């Protein structure tokens, strides 16, 4: 059963038929449709959207920490189709410690964006060619964009002195 917000959107209906169980949620944001995708289907959904629906570009990948809500993290993929001049957002909810399939095999450009999400949120991506910290130093402890990470960092906490 598809979420109500999808309505009669033929592309989404076709996607749901092609990969059953992939779409778990859909909302309409001020700038368009947001599809909630189940974590285990993200790679196949992305491949389908790139090859069948013409989303040739991955604009960016990022994360949101919804702590203390569960599941804690949301990973968001911003897709862009030049041919149709359309944009689409995919959202995947991930619990702490859970890992996701990398979409680097679909778009090579996902490489740095997934590294950034790993670096700042600590979400791991399976089959990523080079999952290392990218913005923070390689020996950094903790994940700065998590909500329980203090704004001034752990190392410079004055309260503990």
């Amino acid at each position, binding site marked *: 059963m598809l979420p109500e917000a999808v309505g009669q959107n033929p592309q989404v209906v076709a996607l749901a038929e092609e990969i059953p169980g992939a779409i778990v949620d859909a909302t309409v944001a001020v*700038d368009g449709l947001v599809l909630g995708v189940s974590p285990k289907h993200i790679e196949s959904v992305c491949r389908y959207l790139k090859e069948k629906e013409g989303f040739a570009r991955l604009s960016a990948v990022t994360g949101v920490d919804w702590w203390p809500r569960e599941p804690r993290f949301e990973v968001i993929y911003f897709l862009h189709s030049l041919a149709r*001049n359309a944009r689409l957002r995919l959202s995947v909810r991930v619990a702490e410690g859970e890992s996701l399939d990398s979409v680097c095999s679909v778009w090579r450009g996902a490489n740095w964006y997934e590294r950034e999400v790993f670096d700042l949120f600590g979400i791991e991506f399976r089959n990523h060619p080079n999952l290392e910290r990218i913005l923070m130093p390689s020996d950094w402890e903790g994940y700065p964009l998590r909500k329980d990470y203090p704004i001034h960092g752990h190392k410079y906490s004055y309260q503990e002195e």
Partner: protein
Amino acid sequence: MIEGKTHVESLDARHELQVADVSGLAVEVPPGSSVRRMTLNMGPQHPSTHGVLRVVLELDGETILSARPEIGYLHTGIEKQFEVKKYQQGIPLTDRVDYLANLNNNLCYSLAVERLLQLEIPPKAQWMRVMLCELTRIASHLIWLGTHALDIGAMTVYFYCFREREEILKIFEMFSGQRMMTSYIRIGGLALEPPRGWQTAVSKVIERLARGIEEYHELLSSNPIWVNRTKGVGSLPVDLMLELGVTGPMIRAAGVNMDSRKDCPHTSYEKFDFDVPIRTENDVYARFDVRMEEMRQSVRIVRQALAGMPSGPWQADAPHVLLPDRERMKTQMESLIYHFKIVTEGFPVPEGSVYQVVESPRGELAYYVVSDGTARPHRVFMRTPSFGNLQSLGAMLEGVLIADSIAVMGSMDFVLGDVDR
């Protein structure tokens, strides 16, 4: 030419580390080894990296076998800082992301929040925003042109470009009181009323620029050294560039018609008549050509803005979002209350999220703002053009000469503050 630590090392485990000789004298090559590779750190402090970028090059003679950009030296956690600030306090942070295109960043963030607030922006503010953003584009491209030419060895252009850019910065100072970190575009409109006599000042500068751009184009395009150094250098297959996230003038020089000002019009760009320059050669020279043409188009847009600037208010009618007029605060109780509430509590933004795309001088700039219904953003993510463009550097430098890598990096026009955020 190359600064930084250099050392010679053999990747072949059978051989010990070879004699390091960076002065160019002969290096003893053990019998039987065919490959002698050198790893060279370009940067983090190197004039041609325009910021703090480190590129780890693996060389065979003068040919680059592989290049690995190392970023993060300018990471300041701006996205984290957004989360503890009120919405209106985020504007000065956006200035400091891409410090050569601060007004485009102001605009993108303001548009995102305005869409969540569903604010209606009056035409005068919109046209003023367009005009200032195009002046920023010219100023940013002038910096790129000057430094790019300087890297390749044409020194004169550098001084001309910085001279002209100073004139644009004087305009920004006239509008906002600041040359670079203007924070002039605010949520709901502009920060201040446009100053008296701005039309004369802008038209004087824009006429001077229109002549100048032709001169600098001529200065370089008729220079055989410049042409030889840039033609046929630094190309990649278009599909790969698209996949790697390359946007802006770089992708337009590869024949892809992609410009957010045309594709998803915002801030009444649809009311302006301008062309998106496209080249298909996909080399350093084509990128130079595209950016020069873009400057001409920006001059065209500014002229239209000067001729047809609408009258009316320069701020939205939203007293709960915009700070009231100082004079009115002294006489009207409501203004004083609104001022107090905005400064102490901020304004709540309805729950939701938005991905707002604008065209910065470097390419597709987007802000993803998530609101949880409070006066502070839950999350702000910046999709910066330099980050996507820089990701293609490794692929672009494979197989080129070291000297050409300077030309390739210059043609990317990245800002490291924009990459590392």
